[in-house]
C-alpha cells in the first residue's frame, strides 16, 4: 500500500493539520504523571497517608469532605483519602505480578513457536486459540468464585487467560526476526534453542515484550479491580479500590467521594496505563502500523 504514489487523500475531509512527526502530546505527559503518582503512592503506601487507613471512627460514620478528612470518611468512619493511597499498593502489586508472569510464560512460548515452527508452533497456537476463544473475565469470576483461595489463585488464573495474546504478539515479532541472517548464523553455529531464544531473539524483540507487558498490566489492573468489586480475590476490609467501590456505593448520598474516589482512581490509572502502553507499543514494537 505504501509504495503506491500518494495523492492527497483528504479531498472528502477538511485538510488536515496533522504532522507526520511524532511528538509527545500533553495527554501523554498527563498520563505519565498519573502513573508516576500511583507508583509513588504504591511504594510509600500508608506512610504518606494523612490518617491510618484502617482506623475506624464509628461515632463519626460517613461524613462529607472536610479540612481534616479531605475526601470525607466511609461507612465505618475511615479516612477515604488515606484508604485510596493505601489501596494503591494493592491495585499495583497484583497486576505487576500478573504482567511479569504473563510475560515470562507467554514470551517463552511465543518465541519458541515463532522460532521452531512446525509441530511445536501449531501446538502452541492451538492452545492460544482455544483459550483466546473463551470469555476470560467471566471464566475468572467463576473459577475464583467457586474455588476460592484469595489473591494467589486470582493472579494465577489471570496469567493463564492473558498468555494467549502475549504468545500471539511475541510469536509474530519472532517470525519477523527468524528471516534475518543472525539467526541463521546462530543456528549454523549449533547453539541450543534456549540460548538462541534468550541470548539472540529476546534482546531483539525486547521492545515488543516491554510494551505488551505494560498492556498486560493494565488489563490485569482492570480485571482484578473488577473481581474485587464483586468481593472476589480480596479479603473483606482490605483497602482495595474495587472493594471500596462495592462497599461504599450505598452511602453515596452521605459522602459521594467514598464511591467516586475509587471509581476515578481505577479509571484514571487504567486510562493512563493504556495511553502510555499504546504509545510504548507504537514507539517500540516492530508491529508499528498494525492496528
Amino acid at each position, binding site marked *: 500500500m505504501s509504495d503506491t504514489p500518494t495523492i492527497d487523500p483528504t479531498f472528502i475531509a477538511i485538510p488536515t493539520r496533522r504532522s507526520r512527526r511524532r511528538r509527545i502530546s500533553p495527554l501523554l505527559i498527563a498520563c505519565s504523571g498519573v502513573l508516576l503518582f500511583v507508583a509513588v503512592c504504591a511504594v510509600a503506601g500508608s506512610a504518606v497517608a494523612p490518617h491510618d487507613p484502617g482506623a475506624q471512627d464509628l461515632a463519626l460514620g460517613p461524613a462529607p469532605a472536610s479540612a481534616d478528612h479531605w475526601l470525607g470518611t466511609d461507612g465505618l468512619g475511615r479516612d477515604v483519602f488515606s484508604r485510596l493511597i493505601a489501596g494503591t499498593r494493592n491495585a499495583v502489586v497484583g497486576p505487576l505480578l500478573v504482567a511479569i508472569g504473563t510475560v515470562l510464560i507467554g514470551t517463552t512460548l511465543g518465541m519458541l513457536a515463532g522460532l521452531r515452527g512446525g509441530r511445536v508452533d501449531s501446538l502452541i497456537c492451538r492452545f492460544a486459540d*482455544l483459550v483466546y476463544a473463551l470469555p476470560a473475565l467471566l471464566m475468572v469470576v467463576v473459577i475464583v468464585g467457586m474455588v476460592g483461595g484469595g489473591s494467589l489463585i486470582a493472579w494465577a488464573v489471570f496469567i493463564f487467560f492473558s498468555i494467549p495474546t502475549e504468545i500471539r504478539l511475541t510469536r509474530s515479532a519472532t517470525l519477523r526476526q527468524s528471516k534475518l541472517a543472525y539467526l541463521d548464523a546462530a543456528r549454523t553455529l549449533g547453539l541450543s534453542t534456549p540460548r538462541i531464544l534468550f541470548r539472540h531473539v529476546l534482546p531483539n524483540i525486547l521492545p515488543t515484550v516491554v510494551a505488551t507487558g505494560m498492556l498486560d498490566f493494565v488489563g490485569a489492573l482492570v480485571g482484578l479491580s473488577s473481581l474485587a468489586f464483586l468481593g*472476589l480475590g480480596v479479603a473483606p476490609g482490605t483497602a482495595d479500590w474495587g472493594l471500596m467501590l462495592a462497599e461504599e456505593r450505598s452511602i453515596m448520598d452521605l459522602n459521594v467521594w467514598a464511591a467516586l474516589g475509587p471509581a476515578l482512581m481505577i479509571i484514571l490509572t*487504567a486510562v493512563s496505563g493504556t495511553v502510555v502502553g499504546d504509545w510504548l507499543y507504537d514507539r517500540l514494537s516492530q508491529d508499528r502500523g498494525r492496528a
Partner: protein
Amino acid sequence: MKFTTVFIQRRLVALALLLLIVSFAVFSLLDLSPGSPEEALLGPEARTNPASVEAIREEYHLDQPLLRRYWNWLADVAHLDLGRSTESGEAVTHVIAQRLVLTTQLGLFAAAIVLLVGVPVGMLAGLRRGSSFDRVVTSAAIFLASAPPFAVGILLILMFGVWLDWLPPFGVGDGAVDRLRHLVLPALALASAALAIVVRQTRAAALGVIDQDYVLFARARGLSRRTIFLNYAFHNAALPVVTTVGLLLVFSLSGAVFVETVFGLPGVGSLLIESINSRNIPVVQGLTLLTAAIVVLGNLFTDLLALAIDPRTRYAGTA
C-alpha cells in the same frame, strides 16, 4: 468455495473440542470447590442430616467415579437437563430462562447503541481525520476502552441518576416505557467498552478506505459524496466492523455481570454472582456452560458473516 468448506469443518471441530473442555471444567467445579460435593450441594444441612446426604449422593450418583459422573451429566445436558437449583429446587434451565429476558433486553439495547452510535461516529471521525471532532472522538474512545464498566456505571449513576436526576439509577421499572427508561444507564455502561472498540475500528477502516485508488476514481467520475460514502467507503469498511460483533457479544455477556450488579438488575449476570455467593453450583455450571456456548457460537457466526460479506476472505487460505 472449497476453502470455505474446509474452513467451516475445521472451525466446527475446534468448536466441539472447546465446548467439551469447557464442559469438563464446568463439571469439575463441583469437586474443585472447597468442602465435599455433598456439602456443596446441601449446605450446612449436610452435617446434621445423614438421610438427606444419602439422598443427594443417590441423586447425583456421587459414589461413581468422576469421569462416569461427567458422562452422565453430559448426557443430561444434551437433553437440556442442567439439574436443579440448590436454593429453590426449580430446574436450572427454568431459573436461567426467567432471568434471561432482562439480560437479553439489556444486551440488545447496548448493541443498538454500539452500532447506531459507534459506526456513524467512527466513520465520520475517519473521514474527517485531524478535525476537532475526530480528536474529541478519539480521546473519548481511549477513555471508554480502558475504563471498566462497573466504574463507568457508578459515574453514570452519580451524573444522571443523582446529580441531574434525569433517569432512574436502580431497578427495572413497570411497563415497556418505564423499563426502557430504567435500562438507559445500564445499557450505556454496558455499551461503553464495545462502543469505543467499534468507533476505533470503523475510524481505522474509513481511514484505510479513503486512501484507496478506487475512491479517488469514483470521485474523478463525479460521483456524489453520498454515493462514495455509502457504496464505497461504508461497504468496504464493513468487514472490520462485522468482526467486532463477536467481541461485542463477549463484552456484553461478561459486562452484564458487573453492570447488573451495579444497577441492581435481576438478570443472568447478577444470577451468576448470587449463585456463586450462595454456592448454588448447578446454576453456576449451567450459566457458565450457556455463556461459553453463546460466545463460541457467536465467534463462529462472526467468521461466517465475514466470509459472506467479503469475498477476499474466502481465498485467504489459498493465497
